[in-house]
């Protein structure tokens, strides 16, 4: 089979330039005032200049990861936010009004509780569904897929997810295990057997469940669209729009689990590698389609199990990086900008991940040494992140300012930098958040 996504296609830069231009043009945004439009476009330029690395921006853009800080700040519980979209919208608007960060990131991570309940999603617990009202949703890690099932996954990823994996993670979609295998359904005599399962009451009930959950998801999406339109209209451009993942994490997070995938590296290395490769095109297509839906070019990619400590440098180069790099190149080919959120430490990975085309990605670090990052991957990619959560939660305003100053002086030198928190900033003291944003906006002006 032809190897794809090893090097970016020749027209990738052109496609990205066009998307950056359309981000700046802001067609379809209903601005509240002319000043709002101007502020919006200035903010897009700050981010675009940092991403492209062709010129030094006017100042450092300040784009912390809000996480669910807006809920804490507005006194809205998780239960309220996941079940009452007006309350959710209220919290988000209040955060933007009071803190004025440079980019808008919508509450898409505050998922609709009713839709999750309807399908009986059991990979997570959430407020009112296994957790108290004020608690954020949390992942329930288990070995949902056995090592013996790698071959089934490799043979037919879509079929495996649809009729093996989904019945395990959606309590109310058990009947999906009766779904037919699809590629044989192309000859007349193969059609009736493929239709027969849909006569079953259980399959019909599952389809009804999907219809109801779908309607609820659309209500939620409309609420998100409305709050987004209002905040964008006040001059805050969206910081991103798409999402994708590293193939290794797809397997490791929710299929095999941490323990399972780490043991597979030793016990089933060939199957693991082949499965990662099979997942690559799905992650490219998902990143591209999620960007199509929002009209944005930045693809958020949370990275988990490639962090320092999980595996050796050699193991990272073998198991984690090759398939991730293909996803990155595949997205770059579409003119998109992967924003790689490396939670934890990435100090051992900085050289390997520098093997990327310049000005086409953003690396968002949590607890990585930013001075070293600047000298390595910072030569080819915009850097962001690293304002530490422990300081934001338990430190003083002075601690926060010192960290931001040091970051701007090192990682921010000569542009190619966006100031942000190391991870989602829930639990932070509001005064510290305010200090981070206000101080950095002032100190981060390039002269």
């Amino acid at each position, binding site marked *: 089979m032809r190897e794809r996504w090893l090097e970016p296609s020749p027209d990738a830069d052109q496609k990205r330039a066009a998307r950056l231009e359309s981000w700046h043009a802001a067609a379809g945004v209903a601005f509240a005032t002319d000043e709002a439009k101007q502020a919006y476009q200035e903010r897009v330029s700050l981010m675009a200049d940092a991403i492209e690395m062709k010129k030094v921006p006017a100042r450092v853009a300040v784009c912390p990861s809000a996480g669910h800080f807006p809920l804490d700040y507005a006194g809205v519980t998780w239960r309220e936010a996941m079940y009452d979209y007006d309350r959710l919208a209220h919290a988000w608007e209040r955060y933007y009004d009071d803190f004025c960060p440079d980019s808008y990131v919508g509450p898409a991570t505050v998922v609709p509780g009713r839709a999750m309940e309807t399908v009986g999603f059991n990979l997570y*617990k959430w407020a009112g569904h296994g*957790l108290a009202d004020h*608690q*954020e949703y*949390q*992942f*329930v*890690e288990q070995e949902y897929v056995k090592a013996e099932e790698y071959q089934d996954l490799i043979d037919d990823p879509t079929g495996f997810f649809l009729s093996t994996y989904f019945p395990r993670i959606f309590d109310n979609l058990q009947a999906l295990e009766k779904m037919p295998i699809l590629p044989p359904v192309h000859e007349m005599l193969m059609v009736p057997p493929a239709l027969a399962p849909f006569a079953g009451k259980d399959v019909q009930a599952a389809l009804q469940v999907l219809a109801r959950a779908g309607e609820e998801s659309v209500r939620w999406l409309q609420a998100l669209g409305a709050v987004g339109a209002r905040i964008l209209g006040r001059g805050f451009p969206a910081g991103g729009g798409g999402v994708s993942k590293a193939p290794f994490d797809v397997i490791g997070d929710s299929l095999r*689990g*941490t*323990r399972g995938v*780490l*043991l597979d*590296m*030793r*016990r089933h290395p060939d199957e693991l590698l082949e499965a990662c490769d099979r997942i690559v095109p799905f992650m490219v297509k998902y990143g591209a389609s999620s960007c199509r839906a929002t009209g944005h070019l930045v693809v958020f990619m949370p990275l988990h199990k490639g962090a320092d*400590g*999980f*595996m*050796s440098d050699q*193991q990272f180069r073998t198991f984690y990086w090759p398939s991730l790099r293909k996803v990155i190149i595949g997205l770059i080919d579409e003119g998109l900008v992967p924003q790689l959120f490396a*939670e*934890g430490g990435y100090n051992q990975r900085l050289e390997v991940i520098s093997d990327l085309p310049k000005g086409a990605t953003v690396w968002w670090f949590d607890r990585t040494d930013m001075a070293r990052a600047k000298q390595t991957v910072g030569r080819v990619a915009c850097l962001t992140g690293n304002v*530490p*959560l*422990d*300081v934001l*939660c*338990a*430190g003083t305003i002075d601690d926060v300012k010192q960290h931001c100053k040091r970051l701007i002086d090192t990682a921010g030198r000569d542009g190619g930098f966006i100031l942000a928190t190391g*991870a989602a900033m*829930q*639990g*932070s003291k509001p005064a510290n958040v305010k200090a981070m944003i206000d101080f950095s906006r002032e100190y981060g002006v390039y002269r």
Partner: protein
Amino acid sequence: MPDRLITAISEMNEDAAIAITRDLLAHGEDPLAIVASCSAAMEIVGKRFEAGEYFLPELMLAGEIVKGISDLARPALHGAGTAARKGAVVLGTVKGDIHNIGKDIVSFLLDVNGFAVYDVGVDADPAVFVKAIQDHKPAVVGLSGLLTVAYDSMKSTVQAIEAAGLRDQVKIMIGGAQVSETIRQYAGADAFGEDAMAGVRLAKQWIG
């Protein structure tokens, strides 16, 4: 102590390690010597981890191998050796946080490194930790948490241990993605661990 068993474990040869154990047991080898080989192998694995040669996959696999060997040797032990634990550790994920994986890995590594581990589970109330300390008299308590909400829960757990008059009897370590020296001070713990082996290292240091 059978050297070839130590080598098989520390070199990650799972099939060989199991075959050697079967062979040794069939030839009447003292099961305590087999258990001692496992400990010696885990020492080597731990050192290689500290040296940056081994990482989590090797720690986990070594643990799995040792568990498999223990299962084989147990019938021959007739209860001997099971009491030969280094000391007790009470471990759990603090109130408000249900993440189990980091805690489970530390718990597993402490276990295969010879500690008696009392795991109080996830989302554990400070009172649950206090009760476990009263029941099991550990020298070490481990508080785990992935979320920032864990900062306050770690603090209140340490306070509850103090209020119960147990603080002097235990060393408290905290672990999880967002812990640091700042959070160690904030919570009032004795140490924080940056990786799973740090939990084993601290327990060894404190229990000896």
